[in-house]
């Protein structure tokens, strides 16, 4: 975190989310305008984690074989010719899928198995991907001509969709002052693979208390219109709510958030911190939402504000506050 904050200025919260994604072994979709540092972020993470890092620039003519790899005819040392599998760039630890929405649906769907199963199946042979395996995809919300929006099934495989906002004037001033020609400083500390695996093992020991898991379940149920605790905006604007995979994602991300906070258990605040990036690409809004310029982030924020975390259901005239 410290290294990331030092190299990429003014994006602490973003860095935290990306790290949570990595610790949760999830894939992250980075969405933002060009020049906001998406690629720089991914490259820096690769450098800090000392993991194998590859980048694919998705274009409309990119073929699945270009991503997954292909069989080529090769002559062996004995003079015999055989088909040899040439791994694609997906065989790496950290894959930057730059402008993923510019690839054709055929190529995009080639990523489905890799993201969910962490393996590649070609010609009946399934090859596992090196572990850990993360996809950090980026897409541009403008310049949508010639793009293929990611289908819901593929969006659901991303743990987070992280929105890149513009940085404020102070940060811009620091960038101009400290980053000559935009060159990033190299990290002065790197995480060894063993340390990363230790973190993964620690993740397994983070305890998710029953009230918190219950809260996550209620939260996800409340995103479904007509649900018991669905709010009025949910009923009004959402066509389909989040899937059980979203609930699992929230729980895992909350664990990672608790780990980053140095705690052995998940609290409600961990859940609240990760809910928005987990749910904001999983809620399918209706046309009414478009008319009213309503988006998923606003709906999730409204839901988090309305839903009582503990389910105590205190009367409205009773107020609780810290001493």
């Amino acid at each position, binding site marked *: 975190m410290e290294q990331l904050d030092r190299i990429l200025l003014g994006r602490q919260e973003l860095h935290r989310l990306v790290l949570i994604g990595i610790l949760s072994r999830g894939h992250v979709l980075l969405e933002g305008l060009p020049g906001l540092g998406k690629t720089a972020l991914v490259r820096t993470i690769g450098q800090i984690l000392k993991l194998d890092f590859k980048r694919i620039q998705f274009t409309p003519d990119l073929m699945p074989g270009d991503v997954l790899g292909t069989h080529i005819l090769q002559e062996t040392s004995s003079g015999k010719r055989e088909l040899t599998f040439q791994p694609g760039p997906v065989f790496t630890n950290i894959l930057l899928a730059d402008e993923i929405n510019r690839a054709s649906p055929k190529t995009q769907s080639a990523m489905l198995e890799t993201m969910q199963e962490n393996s590649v199946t070609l010609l009946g042979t399934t090859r596992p991907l090196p572990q850990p395996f993360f996809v950090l995809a980026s897409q541009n919300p403008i310049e949508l001509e010639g793009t293929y929006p990611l289908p819901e099934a593929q969006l659901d495989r991303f743990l987070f969709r992280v929105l890149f906002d513009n940085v404020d004037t102070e940060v811009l001033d620091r960038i101009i002052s400290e980053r000559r020609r935009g060159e990033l400083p190299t990290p002065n500390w790197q995480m060894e693979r063993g340390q990363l695996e230790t973190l993964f093992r620690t993740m397994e020991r983070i305890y998710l208390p029953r009230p918190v898991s219950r809260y996550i379940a209620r939260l996800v149920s409340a995103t479904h219109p007509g649900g018991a605790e669905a709010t009025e905006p949910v009923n009004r604007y959402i066509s389909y709510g989040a899937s059980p995979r979203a609930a699992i994602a929230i729980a895992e991300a909350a664990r990672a958030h608790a780990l980053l906070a140095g705690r052995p258990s998940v609290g*409600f*605040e961990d859940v609240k911190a990760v809910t928005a990036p987990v749910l904001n690409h999983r809620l399918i809004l209706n046309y009414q939402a478009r008319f009213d310029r309503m988006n998923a982030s606003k709906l999730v924020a409204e839901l988090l504000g309305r839903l009582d975390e503990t389910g105590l259901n205190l009367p409205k005239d*009773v*107020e609780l*506050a*810290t*001493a």
Partner: protein
Amino acid sequence: MKSPHSQALQSFVRRLMLLSLLRAGIQMATLWFFIWGVVILMARISGVQQTEWLALGMLGFVPLAMAAGLRERSRQPAFDKMRACYDRLQACGGILMSEEVSDMTAWQAHLSAASAPRLRWHSGQAMLWLGVSALFMAVALLLPERLTRLSSHRPLEIGRTVDQLQAEVQTLQQEKIVEDKKAEDLQQQLSQLKQDSSGFDPNKTWEALDHIKEANSDAAKQAAEEALTKMRELTQAETLARAMAQAADKGMSEANATESAQDLASMLNAAKLENGILNGQIPPELLAGLNGLNKEQLEKLMQALELNKNSLGLTVSNLANLKLIDPALLSKCQNAGQCHNPNALAEYLSTCTNGCDALAECLLLGKGGPGGGGPPAPMTWDNDTSEKDVKFQEHALPPAAHLSDAQLVGVSKAAPDLSGNDVNAGNGALDNAAASGGSAHSQVILPEHRQAVRNFFKRDN
């Protein structure tokens, strides 16, 4: 030893529970005060004025509040929920919640200082309702008795009516028109009505009073009618007795005297003074010796008759004073008590020979009989002729002939020919009357109707 956070958590749970109990208790007290206030109001309106018992009833909220407390206790949130709430409020990050699986005391040392979360109850509205309900109950309890009796036990203003009826009954009793026992019953009934009369059901009281009034009036009217008849009889008898006395002075024959005495006896017997409601009395020695009464005895008889008449007149007058009979009946009675002119009858008795009918002549007095129609009577238009119970004589009309019984004599499109032999139109009062001579049959057709009439009678063929 419990950790500070555990102690704070226990404190928080206790305070939450206490607040729930207090809140439920106040709600129940509010509800009970409203209900009991209504009960008090209803009870006081319906006549229960023992406010001590009603005031004690307000303590009924105690068991209700206890029941509400027990209910709240059973509905108390699970401990893990309250612990989760504490964890969230204290930003413990799930460490306290993790105590459900392992001892987290060591981790709790890293948390911020323990303190029970602050519970704040916005009780303004609840307290306002409690105050309103308590005030309502207090007002219901302390309301002056006269206000609570306003609608229910307000007695009817029937005192004067009852007094009037009691006076009537008393008069009827004194005049022996109503028997003593019945009069006492009526008096008792009137007293009871006066005591029990209520604004709740005035119709019942008024109906009972009307019934008594009608019974009094009927009895009085019956007595007055009887008095009128008896006074007429007595007046005729008195007239005859006076005529007899005068005729005796003028030398009435023995036969006429005997016959007149018999007529007088029959008159007195017909009067039946001893019978009926208003019974009078004539000395028996006078009645026994009617055939041979001398002048002195005749005077005594006349005095007795006068006395009975006066008694009857006084009774009728008393009834009229109480308005039990109408003034017309009183006037009739007074007129009936006026003695006719006995001079003509005395003249008749002294002069008539060969069997004169004194009784018949006496009955004709004032009706064109002896004396030329009695004393002159004033001509007044005060009293209209009553049309009560007057009915026209009913005549059943003959049944109308049914159309099927009609006889067809012919069909013609032209106007009916009335000049035939079958029709006899010569029996009417207007027979042979000229149509142009102002006959009753002539019908004037107004100018604006002429065209319509012409069109109606117009025939194409």
